[in-house]
């Protein structure tokens, strides 16, 4: 901000100071969780009195943390299915919207994005009421259906941006050369929109892994989900294993972020 005169210094400094505090607020808690997960203390004291790996050993112990392992397995399985379903639904919708300039396409896009602003807790309760009205007991499939409704808008955003950049002339050339619509999709369209599809699948996966409002109402003893189990541990005992589990999740998020950013420019897509 050097191009501004001396009278602007106080405001420029204030902006810089607030930005610095903002960065600290964003990153600080993540680092604090990581450090806490190595504490020797039974309590969540900060700074930790000493460092140890015992909470990670506890967390990975198959006998002592069996319930956490079951919940983590369920969460990963539901997230994988949700990502596949959301990506397929969003890719179709994104191609349809990008091929049309009609009003219906703009309206449909608005409708497809609606789950983003609807309070999750209201939708979670609605799914519970709907499935119990249909006499469907809580199940893996219903969790996937509920998660997918919330996750699809995230996938649609990145896939839609990729599909909007498709050159219609390429599709026409492919058709004129005798390719079937399916072949055109597989050989021309999909390779071109692949970065958007991969980013979208990743965001849908993360959205499902992180989902609380739907799991809160639809998970049961057999389909316990990781965020709900961790919430229970936080409410009751403040078990330090929550810190170790958080440490694992932070490390995985960071690794995936680096990999996805290298592969498909994820960070740029999320700010674009």
């Amino acid at each position: 901000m050097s191009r501004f005169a001396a009278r602007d210094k106080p405001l420029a400094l204030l902006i810089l100071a607030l930005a610095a505090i903002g960065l600290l607020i964003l990153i600080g808690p993540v680092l604090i969780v990581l450090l806490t997960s190595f504490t020797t203390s039974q309590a969540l004291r900060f700074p930790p009195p000493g460092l140890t790996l015992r909470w990670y050993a506890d967390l990975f112990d198959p006998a002592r943390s069996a319930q956490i392992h079951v919940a983590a397995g369920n969460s990963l399985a539901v997230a994988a299915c949700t990502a596949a379903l959301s990506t397929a639904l969003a890719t179709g919708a994104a191609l349809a919207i990008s091929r049309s300039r009609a009003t219906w396409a703009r309206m449909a896009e608005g409708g497809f994005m609606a789950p983003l602003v609807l309070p999750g807790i209201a939708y979670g309760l609605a799914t519970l009421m709907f499935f119990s009205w249909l006499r469907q007991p809580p199940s893996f499939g219903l969790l996937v259906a509920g998660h997918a409704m919330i996750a699809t808008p995230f996938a649609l955003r990145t896939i839609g941006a990729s599909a909007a950049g498709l050159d219609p002339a390429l599709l026409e050339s492919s058709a004129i050369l005798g390719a079937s619509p399916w072949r055109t999709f597989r050989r021309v369209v999909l390779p071109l929109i692949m970065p958007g599809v991969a980013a979208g699948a990743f965001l849908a996966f993360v959205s499902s892994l992180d989902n609380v409002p739907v799991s809160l109402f639809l998970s049961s003893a057999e389909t316990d989900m990781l965020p709900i189990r961790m919430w229970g541990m936080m409410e009751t005992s403040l078990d330090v294993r929550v810190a170790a589990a958080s440490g694992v999740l932070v490390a995985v998020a960071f690794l995936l972020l680096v990999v996805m950013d290298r592969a498909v420019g994820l960070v740029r897509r999320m700010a674009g």
Partner: protein
Amino acid sequence: MSERGAWRLALPLALAQLLFFLSPLLLLAATSLATDENLDTASLAAWRDVLGDSFHRQAVLNTLRLGALTVLATLLFAVPLALLHMVAGPALKRIILLAAVLPLLTSVVVRTFAWIVILGREGVINSTLLSTGLTSAPIPLLQTEPGLILALTQIEMPLMLLPLIASLGRIDPALLDASASLGASLFRTLRRVVLPMALPGLLAGATLVFASASTAFISQSVIGGGRLAYLPSLVWQQAMVVFNWPLAAALALTLMASVLAVAAALSAVGRKAAHV
């Protein structure tokens, strides 16, 4: 893939949303107008209970207030960060973007847990205050509204920061130089050049933060607002503990209506500003 047949590709998502998104919400509305979850008898009892009871009215106000204060708190830090991103070099730009995206990819439960460690009796803030002698006893931060707003500021900030960065990224830096060389102060440049361009991102961010903060069940229940009750925890209690489904449905719809009203108001502001 002909132009005319392309709309069929949107059918699977449209049908899925109709079946698994719209139908549950319609059933939610129907349940709020019944005496119980079997939907045999119509009744306005649940709505009388929500709108006529001062405890429930207060919970609605608490929730709206929490959403509004979180929006303001995220703005306070996200606007300077987005401005810094606009003028920063590539390395700093990257750090700011990573700082915005990483929390978004870490579970809300993890971010909420971090704030327990920060706000607790032996947490980061209290041990700093005690060791510097600023206080003689730990001050309560968990189970207070300021503590919850502070936590939500971090938890929701990426939702404000990313749209703001996207909006400000469309500003031509030459515009800022032009404004400065014409003698405008930094404040005037921000107000007359940057703010109008930032407005769409700001309003989109405000809508997302408000919607997310007012429905943040885990943060609200674990970090808590002390004696303040918020709608999401009332919805959960009525649905899963008391099993009064019509009341739970009416409370959930009240939350939904509040969030949608705020989203509509913000989008009206955006449309009005676009015409000026």
